[in-house]
């Protein structure tokens, strides 16, 4: 049976995918919306492709242009499927809200408590639905 975590929803939507834990990433300057991969050499996930992954990250980092980069990646279909954060990140959330408004494409985003967030590991199969995270066996 799936374990269930309730979370605060920043951006609504449904998603399913593999969890990928990341240290904070600046999407602007650190991520290529055309390929969906991390381009910041000093980031521990350098070269990794995030498309369709459920990114588990404390929050984003750096430039306020990250909203646009994420919105563009959502438009192109290269973006992560969803984000599970530890802190409210309005810059990333705005990118997802705008993509939903302009293109009717979903990239849900939720904020978890520290204890619940810590339970998530890279490779876990997750399903997100209206403020709930299901960890599949």
């Amino acid at each position, binding site marked *: 049976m799936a374990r269930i975590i309730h979370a605060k929803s920043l951006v609504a939507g449904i998603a399913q995918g593999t969890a990928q834990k990341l240290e904070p990433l600046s999407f602007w300057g650190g991520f290529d919306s055309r390929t969906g991969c991390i381009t910041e050499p000093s980031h521990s996930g350098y070269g990794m492709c995030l498309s369709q992954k459920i990114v588990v990250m404390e929050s984003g980092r750096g*430039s*306020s242009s990250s909203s646009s980069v994420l*919105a563009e990646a*959502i438009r192109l279909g290269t973006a992560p499927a969803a984000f599970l954060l530890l802190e*409210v990140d309005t810059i990333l959330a705005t*990118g997802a809200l705008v993509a939903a408004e*302009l293109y009717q494409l979903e990239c849900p985003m939720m904020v978890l408590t520290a204890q619940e967030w810590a339970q998530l590991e890279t490779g876990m199969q997750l399903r997100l639905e209206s403020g709930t995270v299901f960890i599949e066996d």
Partner: protein
Amino acid sequence: MSLNLEPTDLEMLDGRHGAACQFAMKLLVQYAQMLDAAKLISVVGAHIDGCLYHGQASLDFAERLVQLGGKVRVPTTLNVASLDRLHPDLYRGEKAIATQARALMDAYEALGCTATWTCAPYQLPNRPKLGEQIAWAESNAIVFANSVLGARTTRYGDFLDICAAITGRVPDVGLHQTANRRGQIVFSLEQVSPAWLEDSVLCTLLGFIVGKITGSSIPVLLGLPTGTSEDDLKALGATSASSGRVAMFHAVGITPEAPSLAAALQHQAAEQTIFISDTDLQEALNRLNTLAVGAKLTAISLGTPHFSLAEFARLVPLLTGLQCHSDLEFLVSTNRSTLAQLEENGWLQELNRFGVQIVVDTCTYITPILRQAGGAVMTNSGKWAHYAPANLGVTVAFGSLRDCVRSAVEGSVWRE
């Protein structure tokens, strides 16, 4: 907590102030709810970062607002764009992207924004005053406005910035509120040697360290030299907002909300006190600088954030009687009004004689301008050193302004 909207907010949401205002207010309300805001407040100005082209989504959004009849309600400045429209030949990227980028610039002008095209709006006349509520985007501008001007803005990003400008409203959260402007982590310079305290790159290195350690908390710098200039504080803020997420810092005895350590901490205890050492500064320098002395350079890049007139006043005398090495290019990014002043006071001629190419409207690390892709570039900017390797595939040497000029003459990295 639920969001209480005022009658005008509700009118905007109902579409009684036009379709663009309704669109903008709808996004703002979602944003306010995300932050558990209790109400919206009015802002006196905005600074827009959405005018930098990041793909079709940038343009689709701005053109939607234009289509809906959008106009800004408060004086609004524009951040750097992807093109230097005064020197269009500098652009070496794809033609199709240049066309889109130009359309984006036109769209934001059509919304009533002023064509300032600078990441340093605080260097323009009529800058915000102590205590004024504003909605600024661009991480270096945000940290400067909060810290050095004492104006109040949270970290607005693309899209929300123009929504705030169109409605004149923002959620009453974060750094808009006095209590949230309290210093949290004290960085003491007590143990730093006099030689480092006098070093012209001190503030950039401190910014790098502070950004890495504080995340999004508010750092308090204790013991910065009294001669610390606005340009030093600009470098500190820009670097800390690149290596971390700093949106505000206090510098005791220097910034307006920190006449004393107690005032910066709003008379509470510091959450943590960190003593910076010479070793920390040397390590930060080593992290920013990845080229050895003598390494061949392809370019020098200054002006991230945009070079101020005061910085040109430091640069110009360093160039006297010297010539930039013919193998490398020397670029300085600034805003159009500073360029006009350089023309007026004759400095431009001296800069050109040395071999300086001035770049306006944009910046050398966000758009293809450098002659040699993947080259070796020296800069005195912590922000440029942080972002350019990933953006442009370059290797970076970091040094003082003097080091940059001397290296330009030698054609290779030189250090004092």
